[in-house]
């Protein structure tokens, strides 16, 4: 049987890099932005936060932090759906999952560029 060329290695690569970003960076940001800053454990004034995020390097960092784990999600969620029995819908599921990650990346870029 001839090997079929697929885009699988490309998406798996993004899944893998996204998994690393999620493992190393997401917990600390979850604590900071989900709990520590809203609950006042550390004080960052909203005006100061705007200045920080306006920095292009910070924007690039946030794009990596947000976009790459979306591809990690897309890959895992795709196989969750297949594993619970949606095998017959595998093509549309793959398009929807990876498409959502690409859409999320574009949206993240737009959201970041809005902060001045």
């Amino acid at each position, binding site marked *: 049987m001839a090997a079929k060329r697929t885009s699988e290695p490309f998406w798996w690569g993004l899944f893998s890099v996204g*998994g690393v970003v999620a*493992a190393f960076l997401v917990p600390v940001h979850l604590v900071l932005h989900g709990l520590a800053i*809203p609950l006042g454990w550390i004080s960052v004034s909203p005006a100061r936060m705007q200045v920080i995020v306006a920095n292009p390097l910070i924007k690039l960092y946030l794009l990596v932090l947000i976009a790459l784990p979306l591809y990690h999600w897309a890959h895992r969620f795709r196989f969750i759906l297949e594993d619970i029995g949606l095998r017959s819908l595998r093509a549309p599921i793959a398009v929807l999952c990876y498409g959502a990650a690409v859409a999320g990346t574009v949206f993240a870029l737009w959201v970041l560029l809005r902060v001045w």
Partner: protein
Amino acid sequence: MTEPRARRPGLYYPKLPTTWWLRNPRYFAFMIRELSSVFVAAFLVVLLIQLWELGNGPDSYAALLQKFRSPGWIVFHAVALAFALYHTVTWLNLTAVVQEVRLGERQVPPWLVTALSFVGWGVVSLVVLFLLLQMS
């Protein structure tokens, strides 16, 4: 995570029920690990909403932070954190299994690779915290 083989007539393909992963603690742990990605992604969407409000101005951002003080949001972030930590622990534990690290001829023992991964995670987390405190 390879492509499933093409179906051939005459072979037996078991049909698993949707709840197959509830049958065995190991299957359940696998599914929780895979599901952690959903909670991580949900948090990142919420973070995007924070950044969206920040783009509307500091007052909008402050109003959103105020909402995050409600019990519902605290529970959401706590649950998402639990799943995020589960992802980190399972991912770092697997790293040494997937990636063999060599120094010259010698293989670095997998337990050391895992230990160094966890130390690296701690250092990265502290650096993020330190930089944010520096900038604020």
